């Protein structure tokens, strides 16, 4: 019999198709809770969840906290500025100190790829990767898969294009791995300076020009251009970027009528996507955010032990 048997969620890499289906199915059950008047179930009462964000985050941090609270877990959230990191404490020392307080789950967002893997080696608590450097952001990929499945009824066989700064995007990596595992066809698109070396090894097609890449696609995923990367080396200006690689109404004319448009946020309106497209009928950007809470509830539940035989309240 299938069992969800993971202590940590470090990346999409480690999940099987069964695991992913289990998480999405569990999230389906949790969606309903968020629409109740009293949005709280006692499932994780007495459990503690620590979220530790070395990098700024609004959406992911709020989403995890909301998810934990709706399951009645005790939550504590730390950020780099109010942690001992600023006093020079190493990640491992911080981890050991947190472990000494015996939390059930530690959620980590960190600017270095692999930091959650390092943490997981030193703590007994389950570790959830909430984004590590340019490596992975598995909960984003799961909520993206969940959103696609809800909107399109399936993932297998769909054609998805991801447009933007693939090279520096942890969201893109996790989405690519997840989508490929679930049987979707994935194309990546954007300026050649932002397509990683040997990208085909990830199992994707490369079509640099978004206008060509988005044809016949069921899903368009736009990535955020990180304004801090705007140093004139990857691309000359935001103006030129939006002209050649931004998604706008004109470009949308070449897309399928029933295409859905996704974006992990935060959006730079007028850069990678124009406001009218982001707010238009094809956009599912806010659904992604709502679904994020359900996915994170599902994960907390499964990682803390729900997958190993307990009943769902």
């Amino acid at each position: 019999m299938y069992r969800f048997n993971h202590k940590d969620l470090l990346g999409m890499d480690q999940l099987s198709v069964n695991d992913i289906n289990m998480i999405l199915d569990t999230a389906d059950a949790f969606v309903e809770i968020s629409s109740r008047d009293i949005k709280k179930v006692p499932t994780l009462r007495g459990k503690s969840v620590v979220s530790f964000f070395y990098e700024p985050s609004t959406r992911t941090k709020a989403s995890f906290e909301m998810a934990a609270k709706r399951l009645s877990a005790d939550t504590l959230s730390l950020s780099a500025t109010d942690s001992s990191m600023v006093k020079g404490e190493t990640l491992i020392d911080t981890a050991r100190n947190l472990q000494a307080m015996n939390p059930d789950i530690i959620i980590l967002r960190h600017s270095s790829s692999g930091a959650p893997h390092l943490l997981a080696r030193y703590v007994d608590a389950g570790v959830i990767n909430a984004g590590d450097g340019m490596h992975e952001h598995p909960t984003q990929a799961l909520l993206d898969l969940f959103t696609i499945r809800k909107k399109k009824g399936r993932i297998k066989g769909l054609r998805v294009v991801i447009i933007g700064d693939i090279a520096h995007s942890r969201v893109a990596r996790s989405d690519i791995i997840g989508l490929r595992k679930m049987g979707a066809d994935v194309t990546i698109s954007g300026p050649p300076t932002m397509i990683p070396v040997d990208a085909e090894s990830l199992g994707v097609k490369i079509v640099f020009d978004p206008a060509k890449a988005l044809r016949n696609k069921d899903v368009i995923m736009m990535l955020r251009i990180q304004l801090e990367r705007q140093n004139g080396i990857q691309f000359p200006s935001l103006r030129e970027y939006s002209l050649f690689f931004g998604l706008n109404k004109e470009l949308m004319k070449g897309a399928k009528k029933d295409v859905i448009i996704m974006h992990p946020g935060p959006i730079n309106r007028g850069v990678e996507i124009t406001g009218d497209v982001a707010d238009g009928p094809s956009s599912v950007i806010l659904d992604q955010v709502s679904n994020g809470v359900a996915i994170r509830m599902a994960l907390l539940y499964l990682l803390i032990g729900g997958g190993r035989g307990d009943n769902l309240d």
Partner: protein
Amino acid sequence: MITWIKGGEVIDPRSGTKRTLDIVIQKGKIERLLPPGNFSPPGDIDLKIIDASGMIVTPGLIDMHVHFREPGEEYKETIATGSQAAAAGGFTAVACMPNTNPINDSRSVTDFILERARKANLTRVYPVAAISRGLRSESLTEFGDLKQAGAVAVSDDGRPVTSSELMRRAIEYARFFNLPVISHCEDLDLSNKGVMHEGTISTRLGLRGVPAASEEIMVVREILLAKLTGYPVHIAHVSTEGSVTFIKQAKEEGVPVTAETAPHYFSLDHTALTDFDTNAKMRPPLREPKDVEAIKRGLSQGVIDVIATDHAPHSPLEKDVEFDNAAFGIIGLETALSLTLALVRDGVIDLPTAIAKLSYNPASILSVKGGFIEEGKEADLTVIDLNSEYVVQKEGFKSKSHNSPFIGWKMTGRAILTMVGGRIVWESNEQRNPDS
């Protein structure tokens, strides 16, 4: 006192000797080299017999590229602990790179290193002085003064000489003092703060990549400068297929260039990093399988002259951290010989060639003593058991640091006795008791 190394198979790459010989050592020198059964020791003398039957005896191994961290970072390695590691690995001499703190860019630091080496009194330690003051690629160090103090070569290792003009002048000026110039080939702009090889694995892991071209651009520059000046340049730690191709072509054209690689570049590729193992992080980075094959070809075709370790000790403070923040470098002195012998077993190079790359070739490039076995010369020797099997243990290292990706590897073949100037500086516990 006389030391009699009895019954070992002597391998001397320079003379082509490969046969069983007894070696008689007195006053630190090889007094006689003769077929077994021909030596009868005088009765009235203190005699030590080393039974080397079933073993091979080679010129003392020479590692022309180590980092001993003293002065400045003694918590990682000292000249004493580094020398112990070298001796345990079969090395009788090492050349230590100048990127200490302070940097070895003046006589006083060179003096200090040699003083510490004398105190440690194990392997020979040859300081390599900096090419540029402070390794800043702005102005030359005092090559003449440094050479007189005991420096055997100049290098800004750890950093490239970023100014092509300064590198050209360094090569020309070094010629006057007959000092070898060793180049760490890297285009720092192109490396762009990369932490591993740029390829499928860096793309998968979301780690910043260092393209192979970052090394190759500089290799080509050094070849062109060697051609321009007519004076040799030694290329340190070659790691890519392209570098091997360019060096091969240069050698065929008669450009005076020599090259080394390190055992990790022929033993591991970038897949060693898939678990973010900081003990597989070094510069240049582990490359692709095709590069590993090219390095092996380079060794077998004589394109790569030397195997040197780039022994770079770091403590858990630098290694048990996020991958991006971890220091570059691994230790290598105690695993180099075993990894090289694996190449011999795999038929990549024959045993005398392997020994030449670990002794005679580096001695020739640096113009230091040793590298061959001859009557009347210093008794710097290594006794090797080709069949000794062991597992590399973290606790087993003589080095103060244990940042090695080879922990847990099963190895075959190791040094069981290391002799410097007739004195045993290291002897394996597992060796049979001498029957004296």
